[in-house]
């Protein structure tokens, strides 16, 4: 009898890194924005009931575009960097809706399933910043969901299409392809372009559940970020404010307040609790083999943070039933890079952007963006005022 080599296999992965620290740490963090990125795809509502229309939008960022705008506006920077047509404008978004997709190795392309009308397999939702589609346009008849799920289980179904759980409804795939402005596809498909030039293209997918009529009451709602703050002061959309260095609100994992003057504290406020407007809703999980009737529980929120400059303390924080000012909503930005004087000119001339994406673990999502105007300085520690330390990019020069 062979043994299941599972835990041993896991240990193999962990031990070398633990013992010898050989795993490289020079790769870019997910929270660092340096190229075209899709940070989130949002559906409103996140689960679609009969008779409704879903609105789709996405948080797509190309920081190269920001830098060119800064260069043009400030008259500084490197205009040559901005001659590339890919970064002079906002990216183009290609929206699709797939009844079923072909899986990761096929870039989540829409799958054609025997027994289902081909025209229903893929819907082109256009190339705008947003897209929308009605429930009825996807589900032509009430029995369609059952028919679609059954057809997947047939022997003719392609192997690479996973059979979804159809208990609550039919999960379909929203596919978004973001391509940098002015990209030259040169007779290539968008998929091929993405494989060839990954820095100028990103493919994203999101699952959207088309609810069965009898499950509409259990529908999920998007969570909501109510505001973003720095040191108790709200950061307003579209307004680039100079933040206050690290005496802001925040706490470490043990609950102690953070007071690091070399960091910029930021908080995304989220309402967590009972009643309307809560972001962490109660829900009833699907039964499993082990738990036939799981008890209702609260959603597990997580917040992912991104910045166009500087490094964040953490990329994504998770929490369950946390309050608005606890650690999952709190993050800190650091700019210190130990730069040489000659490198100072590479600092952003305009405001930097920070993003927070809130997810509820069930497809619900919200995101916010704010701008911070950072008056970068450099100098030795003893020459920088306490309230300016978070703007210092070169506190140690030797």
């Amino acid at each position, binding site marked *: 009898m*062979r043994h299941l080599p599972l835990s041993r296999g*896991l240990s193999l992965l962990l031990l070398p890194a*633990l*013992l010898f620290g050989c795993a490289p740490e020079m790769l870019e963090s997910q929270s660092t924005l340096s190229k075209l990125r899709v940070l*989130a795809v949002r559906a409103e509502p996140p689960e679609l009931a009969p008779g409704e229309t879903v609105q789709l939008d996405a948080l797509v960022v190309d920081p190269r575009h920001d830098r060119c705008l800064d260069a043009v506006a400030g008259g500084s920077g490197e205009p040559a960097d901005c001659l590339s047509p890919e970064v002079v404008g906002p990216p183009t978004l290609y929206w699709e809706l797939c009844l079923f997709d072909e899986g990761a190795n096929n870039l989540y392309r829409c799958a054609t399933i025997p027994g289902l009308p081909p025209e229903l397999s893929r819907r082109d939702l256009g190339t705008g910043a947003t897209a929308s589609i009605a429930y009825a346009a996807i589900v032509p008849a009430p029995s369609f969901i059952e028919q679609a799920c059954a057809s997947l289980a047939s022997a003719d179904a392609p192997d690479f299409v996973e*059979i979804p759980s159809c208990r609550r409804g039919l999960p379909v795939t929203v596919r978004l392809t973001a391509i940098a402005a002015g990209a030259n596809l040169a007779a290539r498909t968008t998929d091929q372009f993405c494989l060839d030039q990954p820095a100028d293209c990103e493919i994203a997918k999101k699952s959207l559940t088309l609810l069965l009529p009898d499950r509409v009451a259990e529908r999920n709602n998007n969570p909501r970020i109510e505001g973003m703050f720095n040191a108790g002061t709200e950061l307003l959309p579209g307004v680039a404010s100079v933040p206050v260095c690290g005496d802001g609100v925040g706490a470490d994992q043990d609950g102690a307040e953070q007071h690091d003057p070399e960091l910029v504290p930021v908080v995304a406020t989220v309402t967590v609790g009972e009643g309307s407007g809560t972001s962490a809703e109660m829900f009833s999980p699907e039964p499993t083999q082990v738990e036939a009737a799981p008890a209702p529980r609260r959603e597990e929120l997580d917040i992912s943070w991104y910045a166009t400059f500087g490094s964040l303390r953490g990329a994504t924080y998770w*929490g369950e039933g946390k309050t608005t000012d606890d650690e999952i909503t709190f993050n800190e930005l650091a700019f210190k890079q130990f730069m040489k004087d000659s490198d100072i000119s590479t600092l952003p001339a305009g405001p930097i952007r920070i993003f927070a994406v809130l997810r509820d673990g069930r497809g619900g999502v919200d995101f916010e963006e704010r701008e911070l105007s950072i008056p970068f300085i450099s100098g030795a520690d003893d020459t920088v005022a306490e309230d300016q330390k978070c703007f210092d990019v070169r506190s140690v020069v030797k």
Partner: protein
Amino acid sequence: MRLTCRLRLLSQLALATLAAAPFAAPAAAEEPAPPAEELIEPVLLSNVEAAFPPAAFAAGLQADVILQIDISETGAVTNPIPVEAAYYGYDDKGNLVEETAEISADKHGFIASALAAVTQYKFKPAILKDAKRPEGVAIPVQVTWKVGFVISEQEIQRQLTEKEAQRDQAVASDPTAPVNFQGQLLVRGVRDPLFGVKIKLRQTAPDSGLALEVTTDAEGRFAVPGLKSGTWEIKVDEPGFRLYTTTEKVEAAQLTEATLYIERTREGLVTRTTGEPPPKEVTRRILTVREIQRIPGNNNDAIKVVQNLPGVARAAFGGGQVIVRGSAPEDTAFFVDGMQLLAIYHFGGLRSVFPSEFLSSVNLYPGAFSSQFGRVTGGVIDVRTKSERLERVRGHADVSFIDSSFYLEGPIGEDVDFQIGARRSYIDFILDPLSETLGLSFTTAPRYYDWQGKVRWYADPNHTASLFVYGSDDLLDFVREDQREIPPDLRGGIKISTAFQGAIARLDSKLAPDITNQFQFQYQPQQQGFSLGEGLYFNLNVNFFSIRDTVEWKASDNLTVRGGTDPKYFTGDIALKLPRPPKEGETPVGLGNSEVFEITETFDPAIYNLYTEAEWKPVPKLLLIPGLRYEYYDRVDRGAAEPRLAARYNLTDELVVKGAYGRHHISPTPDETSTTLGNPTLNLEQADHYVLGAEYAFTPYLSFTAEAFYKDLDNLVTRSATPLIYDNAAEGRIYGGEFFLRHQLANNFFGWVAYTISQSERKDRPGEDWRLFDFDQTHILNVIASYDLPDNWSVGARYRYVTGSPNTEIIAGVFDSDSNDYVRVEDTTVNASRNKAFQQLDVRVDKRWIYDTWTLNAYLDLQNATNYENAEGVNYQYDFEDSLPVTGIPIFPSLGIRGEF
């Protein structure tokens, strides 16, 4: 002393009494003178050496015996008559002494011996030619013949020396007196007794010149009765050992005891044999424990050395997997004395679970092995605990960079012996202080321990019983200090544990002169666990019950038949909440992108089997081993017959050709046959092994082996179209060659060159193309050398070169907005790329300090001495657009000390 005896013809023939005289009538005067008669002497054609009288020989007495003999016309000797005898010898001082004795007395037996010999002589008769008979005629003659009894000069000298020693000894000691000086001669450091060694004693105070010599018995003991009082110099001058000299003061009426420890000049002069029978498997690599403990990079671990043998691929650093001839790691099984083990290595292959001292040998069977082994389609590693009777207390304590251990063995009374050992790592003690730097909080940093105990009872000449208990426990439990970046379900840290405990009771019986039976019963509870926070976990608890009974009948010198069974029954439970584990050929996906399965199951499967095999020598140079095994697995309700055949033919004393075929089966893994995660109707996987090769022995310690192998794999489990999840549609093929040049421990050197070239391929579904197996490694080269230098230094080196393992290239990442993860997009051809080739040089230096009753060994084991950066894996950026290699260990020195007694 070889007796020499010479015959010497002393005189010319006396013709006065020739029997031919009547024919020699005087001729008439007027007639011309007839031609003179011509007599041709008889010629000795064959002789028989006269027996040297033993008493005379021992006394150093020699002799010349003069005989008168008649030689007939047919050449036969008749009527021998002694004429004279002269004796001579040497006195104690070497002076020649002569003696003449009466013939009739035959004082020393020389005459009788001479007479007995000459009567067996055969001569060419004497020939008489004359005018009438010019062609000549055979005639009887009488001659005088001398038989000499001569002792060689060397023997004479030896006898003189012996006489001198006896004279001295007689003076130096009194054989009739009580023993007043005794002792034991042992090997310094290890206390092995030395048998048959001469110990020379010479009285130095007073300087009388008295000397004597004693010889040690089987236990190395010696005793001298009535040794004269005084100070005696004791000298042992034995080949392979340093000259040993000491002095002892002896009193005539008082017993003086001495234990003498003599030191081997170089350990390499002695090769310990394992006591294993001659090879019957076509491919069986036997490693003697002593030989391999000092191989660099293995930290004195005998079992780890298996990974340097031909046919064994290299697992990634920390893998601890054993990949034999292109088979999956889980297709190779580990046994101790024929009973199966959960694992042979601790965490990541850092250590094996048995100390080397517990073992007598480590056997690797890479393919087409005996029908005694089943449920395996890859290879077998069977470690053998010591089988020889333990007659002395021995032990060791070992302290190294990563762990410490102790071991003790010895007799308990007349009929019982024991072995105990234990080991514990202290990586946790080292890592704990570093936890803050690592950003980790350890509940238990990586630690392992193992323990063993064995008691044997030699009940009577026909029965030996033993009880062997053992255990192993590995645990890693840590928490990342900053929990905010960990999903709530996964918070609480990572815990990995593997533990097993076991007991094997064994009874060896001799049922009849030609029939033996070996019965073993094993009980082995084992636990495996993994948890990632509270969200993902895997817990497996199994209680194994196993029996092995083998009856062997030695029907004749040319035929041995054995048969038996080793059924297993195990009961246990499994609880898991995990993504479906990746199969071979698949790359693991991130947790956020995987469907998580949660199951709890209990199980109680059984495996039944019968096996038989014969060792048959139809002609002296040919050994045939036909075998058959039948196995039934009740979990999948499948059974299979497994024919085996192996043959060895000794073309010459040095050259053996060999071949083998074997069919093997293995059951799918538990997750594959799970009613929740897999397909309970799966069939057994099957492998047909073919081996052809030759062995050539240049010298008793230098040999070369070449083998070609082919494995045909069928019914391999693979992913299938839903809803079956798995089926048996995959197949595999593995082919290659192994070359093994081995210099066993001799002349202060041991080492080997092991090279394997192979290709291992799989076809996941009918109609698909063949692809490389995950662990395919085209070239595997291991070069090992160790040399013993003077003054108890030794140096060794190991060099390894291995083709990089295949991997499937990740060509892009797709962002999954729901999980905030990127999902990898893989190349459509599985395992089309390879990691960079692995190469590493390890160096080891040992220094031993040998004291009378124990030995201290210090060693420096320098792994990756050239600090070569080997890529053990790839670390991808979050979106798979960039990657960096995960490198293996940098240059890594490991210091250790070890005391043995």
